Structure formats: C-alpha cells, structure tokens
C-alpha cells in the first residue's frame, strides 16, 4: 500500500481535530453546564408561563427578541467576509472564510431558537405555517430566515467537501467514527478536474445568491419594527440601518472568534495580522456608516420634536436607559472607531478589543431599539417598566454558551481554516522556498 502524503499545512490544520487538552474539556463542560442551567430556566418558563419573565402586556418583547436580532445580525459575518470577498476575488480571505461561514450558520440556529423561546406557547409555532398571513412581516421573517439558514448550511458545506475528502483519506485509522462521518459527507470527492468544476459552479452560484438573501433577512427583521406605528420604530431607514449594524457585529464576531482560534490552535502562520488589519478596516468603515445612520435616526426624531418622539428620546438620553444609550454611543461606536482610526493600534490585540466593544455596543443597540420604544406610552399614561428576570438572564447566558459550544464542536470536527483553499493560495504564490512535506503512513 502506498504512503499517504500529509503536508505540513494539512498536519497543522488537522491536529486540533485529534488532540484535545484538559483545558478544552473543562471549557466544554462549563459551556454544557451553562446550557443545562438555561434549559432548567426554560423549563420553569414553560411550566409557569411568560409571567416568570419581566415581560408584560406593555413591554412584550425584551431580552429574547433583542438577542434574536443580535444573533441574526452576527449571522451576516459569513455573507460579507465569505460571499462578498469570494465574489470580488479577494484572495486574502481564504484562511478566514470557513470561520465566517460557520458563525453564520450557528448564529442563525441560536437566533431562531430565541424566537421560539420568546413564545409563551411554543406549540403554537406551527400556527405560523398553518394560519400565517402573508401580509405580516412576522411571516416574511419566518420565510427569509428559513431560506437563509438553508442557504447558509449549504454554503458552509460546499467549500468543506474537498477538506472532507482529505480528512476521509488522511485521518488516523483509529478515528473510525470520524472517518465514517467524513466518508459520508465527502460526496465521494476525488479531486478530479470535473469535480472541481462542479464545485466551483455551485460555490459561485451560492456566493452570489446568499448576499441578497442575507440582506433580505435583516431588512425583513427591521420591518417587523419599522412597519409598526410606534414611536422609535416607524422609520424608513430601518432596513439599511439594521443591515449595516448586522454586518458590523458580524465582522466583530469574526475578529473575536478568529483571535481565539488563532491562539488556541496555534494558527499564527495561517491567520495573519493582515487579516485582522483588513477586517479592522472593514469594521471601521461600517462603524462610521452605523454612526451616520444612528445620527440620522435620532436627529430626525429630535428635530421634529413631536411630544411622543421627544419623550422617547428623553427616556434614552436622560431617563432610565441613559447609561445603556451613552454606553452604546461612546463604548460601542466611538471607542472602536477611535481605536481603529489609529494606524499603530491596528494590531491584533487592539482590533480584538475594538471588536469586543463593538459587539457589546451592538447588543445594547438591539435592546435599546426594542425596549424603550415599548416603554414609551402610546397614550398619555405612565411609562411602562421592564427588567429581565433570572430566567431571561439564564437563557441569554445559555444562548451565548450554545453558540460558543456549536463553534467548539465544529472546530473539533472540521478544520477551521479551509485546507484546500489555503493550499491553492500558497501554490499560486511565487515559490521562493521549497514546499515542506512530511511523508507519514
């Protein structure tokens, strides 16, 4: 039998799949524990009803819907970094597309789950299909998210096929279950020119198609609010405002996950500072666009100065939501812009700090869009109040843990950096140094 050739790159990228330290298991166990606690909290909610949450008749969307919008937002990571850069042939993207695509799929799964959790009677979910009205943005949302989830899973799977073929052939013999799994998923990949041609066509179609589908998703999510006659919601710019915010938080999430993966899996030679610099610049551009939209949204409301708008703005600027509002403006928007504007600060560490601030700010932004608008009275009456209960905080923690766990499981099953695309990229570079290969078998 002939020897199997495993290149240094393949070995580097496949090693995390077969080697897990004690830290990994402790981390995974902690995530499972948080999810378990969240499941218990949800069982309490299921048994007692939504009365165990802080939501009532006036404020009927709270932490769950804010988190849903936030996760749907970060699901735009894959679209921009993978699809747009793929369509524009930006070669530097190759080591980071896989992560972006995985973030998209998992964020969608967690985001969609939050909506089901928000239902006091989850068994009524079927009514959306059975009795849904096409006039309702809720149904549009259901349709577009379903299409986006299906498309994202397909778009995640397609570029995985060549790597699955590699894993099928080159994983250690003792990893029988995995080899069986890879064999089933690899679509009989033999790396023939014909197969590559078909794969290229499929990826090209999906890369182009997933962009408008993704844009439609967050536009439709924004329309749930924008098409409601309520102070703070009725707005013509909500569509692009939400999409820009979504891509902003999506890129921030990629930067954070990329930094974690780079450090934990020692991928410093594959995920380079230039990736952080480029994504940091994209984050800066979107941050500026987001600030522009935010200014436009609030300035218009304050300039018109109708009593309802003025009251809503006073809740944000000087009322009970002021700390969160100014935290969002200064901590979530201005601080990352300031950090990323400084050329010397565009190093990995500072870019990650900017990304963390951006994501915290974006979560605040989602919360501030939903809750204060519902708190502001529709009629001359008192301000409604809402504060999440332990059940909601627990489920939020479980959602974040669930998203992280899905990424962790993915990173243990599949290479987080696309082996074949990086190999193609390396092959295309001028050969100044002979390629290193290791023959093992």
């Amino acid at each position, binding site marked *: 039998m*002939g020897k199997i050739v495993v290149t240094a790159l393949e070995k580097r990228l496949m090693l995390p799949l077969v080697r897990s330290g004690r830290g990994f298991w402790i981390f995974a166990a902690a995530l499972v524990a948080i999810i378990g606690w969240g499941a218990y909290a949800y069982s309490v909610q299921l048994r007692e*009803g939504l009365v165990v949450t802080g939501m009532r008749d006036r404020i009927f969307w709270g932490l769950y819907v804010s988190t849903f919008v936030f996760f749907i937002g970060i699901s735009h990571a894959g679209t921009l970094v993978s699809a747009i850069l793929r369509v524009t042939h930006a070669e530097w993207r190759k080591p980071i597309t896989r992560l972006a695509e995985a973030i998209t799929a998992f964020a969608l799964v967690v985001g969609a789950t939050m909506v089901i959790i928000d239902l006091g009677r989850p068994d009524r979910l079927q009514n959306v299909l059975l009795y849904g009205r*096409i006039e309702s943005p809720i149904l549009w949302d259901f349709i577009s998210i379903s299409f986006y989830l299906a498309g994202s899973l397909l778009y995640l799977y397609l570029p995985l096929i060549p790597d699955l073929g590699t894993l099928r052939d080159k994983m250690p*013999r003792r990893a029988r279950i995995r080899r069986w799994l890879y064999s089933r998923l690899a*679509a009989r990949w033999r790396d023939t*020119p014909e197969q590559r041609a078909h794969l290229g066509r499929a990826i090209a179609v999906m890369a182009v198609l997933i962009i408008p589908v993704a844009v439609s998703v967050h536009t439709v999510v924004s329309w749930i609010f924008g098409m409601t006659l309520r102070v703070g919601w009725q707005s013509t710019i909500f569509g692009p405002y939400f999409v820009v915010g979504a891509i902003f938080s999506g890129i921030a999430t990629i930067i954070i996950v990329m930094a974690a993966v780079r450090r934990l899996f020692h991928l410093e030679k594959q995920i380079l500072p230039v990736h952080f610099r480029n994504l940091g610049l994209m984050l800066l551009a979107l941050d500026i666009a987001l600030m522009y939209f935010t200014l436009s949204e609030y300035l218009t409301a304050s300039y018109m100065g109708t009593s309802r708008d003025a009251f809503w703005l006073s809740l944000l600027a000087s009322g009970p939501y002021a700390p969160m509002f100014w935290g969002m403006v200064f*901590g979530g928007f201005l601080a990352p812009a300031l950090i990323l504007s400084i050329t010397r600060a565009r190093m990995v560490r500072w870019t990650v700090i900017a990304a963390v601030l951006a994501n915290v700010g974006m979560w605040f932004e989602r919360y501030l869009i939903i809750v204060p608008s519902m708190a502001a009275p529709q*009629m001359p009456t008192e301000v409604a*109040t809402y504060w999440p209960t332990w059940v909601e905080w627990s489920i939020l923690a479980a959602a974040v843990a669930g998203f992280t766990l899905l990424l962790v499981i993915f990173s243990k099953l599949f290479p987080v950096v696309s082996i074949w695309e990086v190999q193609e990229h390396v092959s295309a570079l001028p050969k100044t140094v002979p390629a290193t290969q290791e023959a093992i078998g």
Partner: protein
Amino acid sequence: MTPRRWAIPVLIAVVGIAWISPPAEAQDTATMYFRSPVAAVVDGQITPGEYPGSFLDPATGIEVFLSHDGQNMTAGLASPGTGWVGIGFGAPGVFMDGANILIGYVTGATTVLSDEFGVGFEHLADTRLNGTDDIIAKAGSESAGRTTLEFRFPLETGDARDYRLLEGQTYGMTLGYHATADDFVTLHTAAASLLVTVERDPNVVPTRRATLRLGSSGDEVEGDNVTLVATILGDDGAPLSASPLSFYLNSSVGPGPLGTVETDVYGVAAVNYTFRSPGEFTFFVRFTGDFDYLPAQANLTVVAQPAGGQASFLTTDLAVRFVIGAVLGGVALAYGYSILQILQIRRLGSRAKRAPGRGDRTEDGTPRRGGMSK
C-alpha cells in the same frame, strides 16, 4: 498599562454603567374614603385632618384628597402649578374617553370649575352634550406656585354624561394639570392614569349570596365573535339590576379585563369577544358585591376551533402571489442547482473510484487510502 490590562476595565465599565439599576416600578390606586358626616369643607383651603387621607401621584405631583358620605364626594386637588387642574372618573384602564371630568382653575379671586365629559382624548362641558352641570360646591386658591381646588359632587347624578360611582368598586381615575395656563384647551404639563377605589360604608356588612352564571352565544371559531352573557340573581330568585359585572379572560400573564357592564332589569350583562387564535379560553365574570350581597364569581371555558377556508396566501392578489412565488422559487431553484452539483460530484467520484485516475493518488501512484499516524 498594557492594552490587555485596560481592555478588561473598559469592558467592565461599559457593561456596569449600562446596568446600574433597573427602571423603577410605578403603582397607583387611590382611595375615596367613607366619612359620614362629611368633615371636609369646600373653601379652597385644605387643612391637616380635614380629609381622612390623601394620595400623592408621583407622575404628576398632584395630591388628591377624596372622601364621600354615600351620597356626595368631597374632593380636593393640590397641583404643582398655577394653571388648570383636573380629575376624571371612568372605566379602569380607559384614558378620558367616557369619563366624568371635573376641571378648573383659579384666576384672581374667581374659581372656575366645569363638569365635563370625555370624548376620545377631548373633553366637552356636559351642558354642550345635552347633560347638566351637577357641581354642588366649588372653591379654590393659589399660593406659592400651587393651586388648590375643592368641590362637592354627587356619586350618582342621573346625568348620562356623568360616571356613576358605587361603593366598594374600583374605577379609572385620570389626573392632569398645566403649570401656567388658565383655560380648558392647553395640553397638560403632566397627566396620569390611575385607579380609585370607593370605600364602602364599614357599618353595612353584606350577608346575602347572589347566584352568578356565565354562558356564551355565537360561533366558537377563530376570528369569530362570541357574546359572553352573565346573569345574576338574588337569593330570592329576583334579578339584580344595575349591578356592575366585570368580565375577564385568563391568560398566561394574568386576567385580562374585557370590560365592566351593568346588568339590565333582567340581571343580565354581556360583552363581546373575538377569538384571535384557536384553542382553549377561560373567561370569568366577577361581581364585587354591594350593601346586601357578597362578592361572587363564575367561570366559563370554551374551545375555539381553527378557522376553515383557504390560507391567506391563496386569497392574495394574483400579481403579488406571482412576485412572491417568483422570488422564492428563484432562490429555491438556485439552491436546487447547487444540490444538483453536489450530486454530480458524487457521481463523478463513484466513476473515479471504479477507474482511479487523476487527482486521487498518492506519491507512488496508488489510490489515496489509509490514515495519518501521529
């Protein structure tokens, strides 16, 4: 300090600032105390002990003094402004509409007070709506930037433009004032919607038991109306007329009020309800009691069937259906195309496996197999 060291305090600060404290709760039910004979004097001055108690509304800053003797209420309002001040009595949870509103101001030595009726978010004098002005007495004063207004008014006037107040019942109460405007048209500086309970005469203890029944008529189908009909009879079998019955729908967040209706001469009161969804609905009706009868409650559970007919998509305009179908169909087709490519890849892989060729061989030319050893 290295960047990493001060990244953590920055994050903690951002999160901490945002969640320093939750917004405060607000709650608000005032009491109209029973006192017979009435001690309060309508003279525009409120002295300590004149009223049995008071209620300070945190939203408007208006202090309300209310008492009644079973026939008339005597009320005092102290507002933090020199403009108009008003109070309204109506259905719980309804702001102004249908309420009996007493609104007035003090200008110089003159006290102006008007008996008005709420129409939507407007109010008009009862006399302009073929009603009567039923104010028995009024007086007011201004000092230190505050207005004090006192008046006496019947609990039941018989005027259709006034809201009848019964002992032991809870009603909606609206408060509002303006900082400076002495008129009836300038929008309030602050207003609030609250509740007020009319205290029962403690010397009258009810002992009789009424019979309360709740039924429904109409199609119990999603989207259709059903009429909830309650009947209340005394222990002698005679209907109890003019008794307020409150209807509620039980929900996962507590009872949802459907309305309070007075019984007719047959002891019957009814409200309509539209089923928004299919499923089980539990309604109840509550009688809070009166001088003779103890409180009573009756429940009713109905199951609303799903609406039949076509899904809304099929009844939508043809052009809209075409656009939606074309867009969704186009996306589905593109997905299908990609899946077809995967099937082609599989087919080609099978063929290559049967006849190993390009691209699937190891260094020495054998088909790629085996595994990586560490």
